[in-house]
């Protein structure tokens, strides 16, 4: 709603600029036109003065030309940005939802069913993954949400989540961590279509230095997501297959 309102205001401002420009041009032209016809009057009919178009005709031609130029500019911008958009690579984003959402359906430990999402669960030895996959892509909300909850009453130390994805041009890894119990990770595929691998390593020792290569996680979770056209998601670990 906000975007459409802003768009309308933008169009209005643009048209206003065109109208003001044409009005200013008309005032200048009218003054020149008046000067010319009075000069013709003073110098007589035989004077070498080329006829000028009337101010009304000038306004009509100028306005049509301005609108035509505006339309042409719009077409060019459309073509340029559309071409740019096709070259843009959309990368997934991984981030955590913090306590600011405590009273919302996305707050930790209050997930259950979330409207607009399909709910899947995956059990591990000590943790439970609640996976929420958006029913229709794209939308304003995250495409995939993953909750990592402990199945036992223990305080696990750290969680290191990674998302790896690949396309023809690039492969990237994203990193996020939480040091508290539970937590909701959000994976926004950002329009990316293809294979995304989500891994979550859990370190039950709070003092574990997760960045050290010789520190092995106590538990690892992995989801292989495959995002197809129209937002259809496949994930063998969750039992979601797409033909």
């Amino acid at each position, binding site marked *: 709603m906000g975007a459409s309102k802003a768009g309308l205001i933008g169009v209005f401002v643009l048209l206003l600029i065109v109208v003001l420009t044409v009005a200013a041009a008309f005032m200048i032209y*009218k003054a020149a*036109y*008046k000067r*010319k*016809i*009075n000069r*013709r*009057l003073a110098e007589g*009919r035989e*004077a070498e*003065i080329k*006829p*000028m178009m*009337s*101010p*009304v005709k000038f306004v009509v031609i100028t306005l049509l030309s301005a609108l035509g130029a505006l339309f042409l500019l719009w077409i060019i911008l459309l073509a340029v940005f559309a071409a740019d958009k096709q070259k843009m690579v959309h990368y997934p984003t991984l981030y955590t939802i913090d306590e600011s959402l405590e009273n919302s359906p996305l707050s930790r430990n209050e997930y259950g069913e979330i409207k607009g999402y399909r709910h899947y669960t995956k059990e591990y030895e000590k943790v439970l993954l609640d996976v929420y996959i958006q029913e229709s892509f794209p939308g304003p909300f995250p495409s995939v949400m993953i909750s990592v909850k402990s199945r036992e009453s223990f305080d696990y130390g750290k969680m290191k989540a990674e998302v790896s994805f690949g396309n023809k041009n690039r492969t990237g890894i994203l990193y996020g961590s939480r040091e508290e119990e539970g937590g909701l990770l959000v994976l926004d595929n950002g329009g990316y279509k293809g294979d995304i691998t989500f891994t979550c390593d859990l370190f039950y020792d709070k003092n574990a230095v997760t960045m050290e290569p010789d520190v092995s996680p106590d538990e690892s979770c992995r989801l292989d997501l495959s995002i197809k056209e129209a937002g259809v998601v496949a994930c063998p670990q969750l039992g979601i297959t797409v033909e």
Partner: protein
Amino acid sequence: MKIRLLVSDEHYDAIAAELIKKGIDIDDDAELILSEKNVTVTHLIARRGDEIYRLETKDISHIESFAHDIAAYCGGEEYRLSEPLRRLCEILDPKEFIRVSNSVIVSVSHIKSIRPALSQKFTLTMKNGAKVDVTRTYYYIFKEFLGI
């Protein structure tokens, strides 16, 4: 019988003599007019009150029609003419006088300034201060006449 002659100066005497011979009086005030084709007049007979005046066309600023009255403006004064506007268009010098509306003929040499309007009109300010509008009907005629 009285007749008014609107002919060129070179033919005036001969025609006048011929008419007088036949018993026809030449009177500038007569209602019957004998005119020569493609001849323009250099003066008009006008009235002001009870007096009759001979107006030189070069002194006439503009001629305006009010219902059945035709008024000629000359030297700051208003005079009454007997010819209809359509007739005046035919006998006045077309290089000097131009019709700018259904009711006004102006003398171009008496125009002080021209102001274009937004629509297809001009407002003429005459040298005697009078303002006359060139209406839409005569807009292009006037433009072409002036060459603007």
